[in-house]
């Protein structure tokens, strides 16, 4: 065995997941899994996972890197505040989502006492305060700074609002832990979230890892680098763009259905392929959306609600009352793993539906407006119609994988011509469930990380051959 190995850890909400990789071969050499025990003592789950890995490998190698992500204890829970819903409120949301956060509250315009009470109850890990373009409105962001200063909130604040108001905000917020960054929207129509994202990540490393008790297990890892969704996004970016020397796969879409939420990441320009007039905020090239109502377990009932019980029953070849009964069983046993053919059929129907809705919400739309010069096409959001690669990650697609059904769920449907989903994509599967680990390695060993990505994230046809 080569001496260069890395241990990639995910302190998840249900499991503590380990992936051991050989950096020279760029291959997975073993996996380990334990329960998530962050709420009691993180070390219990970590030691269980390490024992599992040791049993699989025979003997644990010396690891050159031991890097971790975390989505445990509710993930990185953030509240964002802005001025106008479509402008700085949206820019602040994009910044938080791009940093891998879980948005627990979004507030528009001036905070009321009731809003502040709600934020205190939410007890977020970080508050992102935006509002006003540079040189624009100062009144609202300063009002909100005052309201936060008077609250009992002790979460760190990231100020990413009107630059001109920053000095006053600093005075108002003395006593609070505040990080000042560039404005998430310095001018109308310009989205500049990098600086805020960087600040969020630094706070995550410096404070949140400790606050969640993950540092109790610190002798078992070197660093917790970022929230898990940020690592998945970083893995997706490397897979798409390459490392500068070796090319990546090009523009792609990643779908990550979990128990509670479904994440979609696009690494693609999103500009119109047909010359449509683009309206609304410019879209980030690397974009993450999170659907809080679409998931395989905690949110199973809301997937059925979103799609209607009949279509789900039809896909799963069950009766509507069977669907209701299945949802009740899942609610009682949130970690239920499908075994019987009907359980698997139901999960496939849930999975396809969650992915279809999540991709439709992530992708942009076109509409035709009639002008005096004739019809014109207006685009909102990203045009993903030309994307040739869609990647499925997460336990459900890997284990339930039905290539044609997954592809059907992700691609454009003739019945919905206004949705700009991929028209003719190929499906790749993250068969080692290691995209988060690729994102972790991207920061320290980009070449090995990219080679690992190319070995682990493979066209679905090849996965099926391996399975046979």
């Amino acid at each position, binding site marked *: 065995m080569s001496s260069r190995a890395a241990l990639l850890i995910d302190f998840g909400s249900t499991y503590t997941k380990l992936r051991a990789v050989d950096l020279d071969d760029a291959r997975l050499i073993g996996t380990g899994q334990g329960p998530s025990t962050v709420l009691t003592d993180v070390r219990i789950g970590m030691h269980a996972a390490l024992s599992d890995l040791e049993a699989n490998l025979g003997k644990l190698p010396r690891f050159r890197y031991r890097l971790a992500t975390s989505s445990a204890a509710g993930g990185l829970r953030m509240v964002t505040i802005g*001025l*106008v*819903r*479509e*402008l*700085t409120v949206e820019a602040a949301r994009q910044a938080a989502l791009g940093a891998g956060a879980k948005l627990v509250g979004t507030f528009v315009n001036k905070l009321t006492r009731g809003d502040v009470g709600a934020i205190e109850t939410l007890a977020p890990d970080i508050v992102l305060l935006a*509002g*006003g*373009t540079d*040189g*624009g*409105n*100062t*009144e609202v962001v300063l009002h909100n700074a005052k309201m936060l200063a008077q609250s009992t909130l002790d979460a760190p604040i990231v100020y990413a609002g009107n630059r001109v108001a920053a000095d006053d905000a600093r005075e108002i917020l003395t006593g609070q832990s505040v990080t000042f960054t560039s404005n998430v*929207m310095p*001018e*109308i129509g310009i989205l500049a979230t990098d600086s805020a994202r960087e600040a969020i990540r630094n706070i995550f490393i410096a404070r949140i890892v400790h606050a969640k008790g993950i540092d109790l297990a610190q002798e078992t890892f070197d660093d917790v680098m970022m929230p898990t969704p940020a690592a998945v996004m970083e893995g997706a970016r490397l897979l798409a763009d390459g490392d500068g020397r070796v090319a990546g796969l090009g523009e792609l879409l990643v779908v990550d259905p979990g128990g509670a939420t479904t994440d979609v990441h696009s690494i693609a320009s999103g500009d119109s392929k047909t010359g449509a*007039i683009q*309206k609304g905020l410019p879209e980030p090239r690397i974009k993450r959306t999170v659907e809080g109502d679409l998931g395989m377990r905690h949110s199973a009932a809301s997937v059925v609600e979103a799609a209607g019980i009949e279509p789900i029953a039809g896909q799963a070849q069950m009766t509507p009352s069977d669907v209701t009964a299945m949802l009740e069983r899942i609610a009682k046993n949130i970690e239920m793993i499908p075994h019987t053919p009907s359980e698997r059929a139901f999960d496939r129907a849930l999975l396809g539906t969650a992915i279809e809705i999540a991709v439709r919400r992530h992708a942009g739309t076109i509409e035709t*407006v*009639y*002008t*005096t*010069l004739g019809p*014109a096409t*207006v685009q909102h959001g990203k045009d993903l119609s030309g994307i040739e690669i869609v990647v499925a990650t997460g336990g459900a697609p890997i284990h339930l994988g039905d290539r044609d059904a997954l592809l059907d769920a992700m691609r454009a449907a003739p019945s919905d011509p206004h949705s700009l989903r991929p028209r003719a994509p190929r499906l790749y599967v993250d068969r080692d469930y290691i995209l988060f680990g690729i994102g972790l390695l991207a920061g320290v060993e980009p070449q090995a990380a990219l080679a690992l990505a190319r070995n682990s994230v493979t066209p679905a046809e090849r996965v099926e051959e391996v399975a046979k």
Partner: protein
Amino acid sequence: MPGVGRTLVTGVIGSDTHIVGNRILSMALEEAGYKVVALGALTPPAEFIAAAVETSADAILVSSLYGQGELDCRGFRELCIEAGLDDILIYVGGNLVVGKQPWEEVEKRFLAMGFDRAFPPGTRTDDVVAMLAEDFASREKVG
């Protein structure tokens, strides 16, 4: 420079794609020292207001060239008031109505809708710059 320190929002309202005149106007306003937030063609009323709120704009200049301006501009002042921009200066200009209607009547209609000034086709950019300077000066005196 009359415009230094002031922000203006410009755009073509509604389903109107005629961008050229609006772009020339925006350039002239920038030359006069204003910070111009140019929203371009096909801009719904709510977008003008959203941009004015975020930027604390001093005035909104609405263009309409395709004859539907009257429909598109209805309720514009009310939208401003709803967004807390009670006193913002709003101008409108272009081919505001269809058919041959006396300008005085058209102007009266748009002023009644709450616009501070309405401009007929063929207005020179210099005139708009002069009017803005005059209106801002008289507001400063009052304020």
